[in-house]
């Protein structure tokens, strides 16, 4: 493309199909405790 650079794989739809295992960390357990941020958590599913 000449006018647009796409930066990522944009895989949210795929992640929904294989997601929901619940193995990931509860987001408030990391560092925040006051301001919810979920998207910086890691997926911990062994096989995706």
């Amino acid at each position, binding site marked *: 493309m000449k*006018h647009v650079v796409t930066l990522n794989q944009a895989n949210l*739809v795929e992640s929904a199909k294989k997601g929901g295992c619940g193995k*990931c960390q*509860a987001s408030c357990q990391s560092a925040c*405790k006051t301001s919810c941020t*979920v998207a910086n958590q*890691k*997926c911990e599913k062994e096989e995706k």
Partner: protein
Amino acid sequence: MNLNENFNKSIHKYQLGGLNLVLDVNSGGVHVLDSMTYDLLDFVQPPFSETCPDEILHAMQTKNPEYAKSDIQECYQEIRELHAKKILFSEDEYEKFAKFATSSPVKAMCLHISHDCNLRCQYCFASTGDFGTGRKLMSVETGKKAIDFLLEKSADRQQLELDFFGGEPLMNFDAVKEVVLYARSREKETGKHFRFTITTNGMLLNDENTDFINREMSNVVLSIDGRKEIHDRMRPTPNGKGSYDVILPKFKKLVDQRDKNLDYYVRGTFTKYNLDFSDDVFSLYDAGFDQISVEPVVSDSKYPYALTEADLPAVSAEYEKLAQRLLAQDRAGKHFNFFHFMIDLNAGPCAIKRLKGCGCGNEYVAISPEGDIYPCHQFVGMENFKMGNLDEGTFNLEMKETFAQSHIYNKYKCRDCWARFYCSGGCNANNYQYQGDILEAHTLSCELEKKRLECAIMIQAVKLLENRADTDTDLKSYKHC
């Protein structure tokens, strides 16, 4: 031109850091555009025709007479292609997954091992340590019951998380040790594994507990606000002295001795008193830390240190400044992590996790020293959110289900918000305390979160473009200024 509002809400376009950026909300796609394509997004949306309609060409040339029709056609075709690939103007297909937002196993716990504190932090949401319920330490017996509760309620979850919290947990360090040893003793028979975290103000750190924390805790959160004068103003001892000089060497020693594969964060709070908080972030880096979280105070607007909507322009500008300073830091080869700018555009949590958010009251609970169960640490002491008690063997499953249903599709402000798959509906406790309903997003927190996300995405975009620009000089045209 009549544009469908729903499609407009499926993208978020903004300019930051010299870039034209667009986030495709539902796919997570992030694109950097040249100025013409960026402008064109104001006039187009699906369905796309084979060529750009005359009225759009006309509108674009009215906006900028220098835009050539042939160039606009090119931009139109690229937008059309991105739409066909479902990475621009893609539709929200996730509501069907909201059915997974049901009552789940409890996998994480905040254990309030101490409702007493040896500091008197002005902004403390725990009322300087006791959550308004009287200074008290948790007994070892209650701590063990909490472990039993977590093991029982975690069903098939193998990885369990437990955060020692307070007040100041090190004021009850013997109980911390006993509870950890008890949990470890039950890992083998139950086939589960505990990940421990502790949040401490550092005042009581010594060789013994530092060694224990570094051995047993997968993460440690060290509370320090940044510059000495900022920290000491808000985090005094009970007799009014500063705590910075006491804790800094202890924190440095703990981090120096810690296995580099284990997590830690120095974690500060900024308030109206230090709207120049990027200096506090860098002060922590200069002090020798590389995992840093500095977060906005959440408090009632009646307090002089409270952040209010009037502070948003200054805080937003400071986040932008911090983002630029972090980029400069990276270019100089001196990278460090700022927690709220961490984002992995290619991975991160699955969409289903993003619907459900933090899981408080459902996958995550807090236990008070008395053994009372609450949805999370921020609800502790609110009688109307007491979910049960360990001694009484009670656990309010109806309230658990209510929290399970607090996903983004049940939060009316969130359904159409471009940031919904990143904050997941925000903090339910903040929503309740400041908006009166766990399902009504806290406006100020939302605005801060959105600015942080814009900065985080911009940082990733700049880094990727700078890496690619080594081999592709055309990318310089993506700068809008």
